């Protein structure tokens, strides 16, 4: 598993401080992050692959300073967004998956082979040549996952990946996260998804207020909500 270290990280958007002096070391296989809207959890995960650079402090992935080695880090860290529509770049399903493999020194046959394997794995093979925008919401999120995993990242970070999905599709995505061999960091409001995770971190108002086994951290979060 990769080691992700936050060292004295603070960040604010204009006047509003979203993270304050955060120190965390993430090494567990499956990590959940919970917290209210606006608590800073989306910012926290965006720091991992350098989508946001902190105002103060450093973030490292396997010793690589994210701010300095963003490209290398992003190759190791795949990111799943809440709304797959924003993540799908190419007009058709297979083209979008193949898009993740460009500039990797692979030839056309290798790209086609890996793309096909990813589509099979996520049950999208029948839609390979379909326009991406005609897929259902659940299928779009599956496509986003396929397009990220085809790049073989070591870590998968997901920011509320099931928020826009119905119960069946969110269970499907949850099962896929469980089956992944990668290190997984998931921000979610779907607390049952995290029950068998190795570690859950509860963020409130830009700081970690609970951190530990799912039962403990989720209880703390429920107490905050009450």
């Amino acid at each position, binding site marked *: 598993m990769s080691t992700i270290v936050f060292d004295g990280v603070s960040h604010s958007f204009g006047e509003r401080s979203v993270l304050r002096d955060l120190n965390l070391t993430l090494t567990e296989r499956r990590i959940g992050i919970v917290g209210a809207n606006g608590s800073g959890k989306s910012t926290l995960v965006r720091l991992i692959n350098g989508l946001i650079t902190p105002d103060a402090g450093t973030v490292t992935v396997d010793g690589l300073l994210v701010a300095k080695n963003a490209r290398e880090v*992003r190759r190791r860290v795949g*990111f799943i967004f809440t709304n797959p529509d924003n*993540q799908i*770049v*190419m007009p058709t399903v297979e083209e979008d998956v193949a898009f993740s493999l460009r*500039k990797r020194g692979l030839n056309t046959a290798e790209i086609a082979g890996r793309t096909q394997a990813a589509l099979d794995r996520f049950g999208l093979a029948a839609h390979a040549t379909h326009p*991406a925008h005609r897929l259902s919401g659940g299928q779009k999120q599956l496509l986003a996952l396929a397009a*990220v995993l085809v790049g073989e990242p070591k870590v998968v970070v997901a920011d509320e990946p099931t928020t826009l999905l119905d119960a069946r599709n969110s269970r499907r995505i949850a099962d896929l996260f469980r089956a992944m061999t990668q290190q997984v960091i998931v921000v979610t409001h779907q607390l049952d998804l995290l029950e068998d995770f190795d570690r859950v971190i509860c963020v409130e108002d830009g700081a970690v207020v609970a951190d530990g086994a799912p039962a403990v951290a989720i209880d703390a979060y429920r107490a905050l909500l009450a």
Partner: protein
Amino acid sequence: MIGLYSPGHSLLHRAPTLLKLAVLSIGVLWVGVLGEPWQLLVALGIVAALYLVAGVPARAAWQQIGPILWILLIAVPIQALFAGWVPAALMAGRLLTAVALAALFTLTTTVTAVLEGFQRLLRPFGRWVDADRVGLLVAITLRCIPLVAEIVTEVLEARRARGTQGSLLALAVPVVVRSLYAADAIGEALVARGLDD
């Protein structure tokens, strides 16, 4: 190109994109200079034969060619009235053949293939133009068309639900604002997918 591709493995599907593009260009020019109705009939026959070779479903072909017939329905009688039936028939034949040929290119070529073709065309100008970036620009533009269409639909629904129908401002402002938000999010996703170059 946006979801118009009709999957297949025919000769036309497999032919190199640039070759197809060159044949399309020459074909359209050729059709433009044909002066005899029988020549145009031959050209139409060739195009029809190409459709059969490509094995494009009739419905997909009709979706492409159908709309031009409506234009011809209006344009042909007017042309006939002013210039006679022969020029009108020639005009109709040229337009129909050219549109059918262009549609055939669209139906048998994936967006990726078109992009690669463009990039190859631009490569000799590599010193002035970044071919990959132009390709990406085109791909994202194509991808954004259904995205913006969806935003417009949702805003129209919201406008109806709130009873502010007819107000142009109530349409334009949310569409622009939401498009800008979407652009931000897509930019972020592109970076996350390794396109920060």
